[in-house]
């Protein structure tokens, strides 16, 4: 019979997750440089397939990381408190913000495209990064707020 997790273990796991989310955001932002270099010669109608695959791989990696971190992952099955009501509420708030900012960015891109030619391969990785980094950081901030106090 396994022991019930004590609150210290849960607190440690929560803090680790909060840090992991912030690190995820930084990693994605730093990968932008590599992605921008890959998209240098990629356009909708041209460029090497390997560069297009690299862009696609970045997008899917970002999504996979985001899903794992923001939806709780394996650790929350071990510690259900990592996915309690407050965490779910914080996650919902973060995702709402993520939707709003990504939507605004997409509208901005659309308006810009009416004036200047922009390529899909240039802006999609940026939008995906933006759409993941902003809610990830906000989620991390909300989680850290809950740690303060007695």
């Amino acid at each position: 019979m396994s022991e019930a997790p004590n609150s210290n273990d849960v607190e440690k796991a929560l803090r680790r997750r909060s840090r992991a989310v912030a690190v995820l955001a930084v990693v994605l932002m730093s990968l932008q440089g590599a992605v921008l270099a890959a998209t240098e010669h990629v356009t909708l109608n041209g460029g090497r397939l390997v560069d297009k695959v690299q862009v696609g791989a970045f997008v899917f990696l970002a999504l996979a990381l985001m899903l794992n971190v923001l939806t709780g992952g394996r650790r929350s099955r071990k510690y259900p408190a990592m996915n309690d009501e407050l965490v779910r509420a914080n996650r919902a708030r973060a995702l709402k913000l993520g939707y709003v900012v990504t939507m605004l960015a997409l509208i901005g891109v659309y308006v810009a495209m009416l004036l200047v030619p922009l390529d899909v391969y240039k802006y999609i990785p940026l939008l995906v990064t933006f759409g993941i980094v902003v809610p990830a950081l906000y989620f991390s901030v909300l989680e850290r707020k809950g740690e303060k106090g007695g």
Partner: protein
Amino acid sequence: MDNQTERLARQRWWLTLTFTLSWLVWQFFSLEPVQAWPYLRGLPVAAIALGAWAVWVVIFFMLFAFMSRVKRERLAHGALDDELTQANRMRCWKVGYFTMLFALAAAVVVAAFKLIDALALTQMLMMVAVSVPLLFFVWLERDTDG
């Protein structure tokens, strides 16, 4: 009072549904690739887009006026925006978020294999990102008799 809440909830439901559908029709028929479809030759595509736009504008103002009136007159005593509706709204934000991200990922894949105009692709992304959460909200708020 309870009849008023039900009536207002139904009004909001219909306004949201027609708002979303008219927007979708307008956007769809104003896509350049759609306008160039040979299957639609003979159809007044531009007129359909314009008509849908006109409907959307009218519904937009009606929705705005409805929300302002509810808030100003404190109609339905907040029952129109109660816990269930707020919870449904939060679910819609989440659905909208994931829909948008997966649509962006799909756009990368589609763009790798098909020649799609970048502006049209962006417009389609916006169509999906806006209409999916709104239609999900309409579905969640549908009238279900207990």
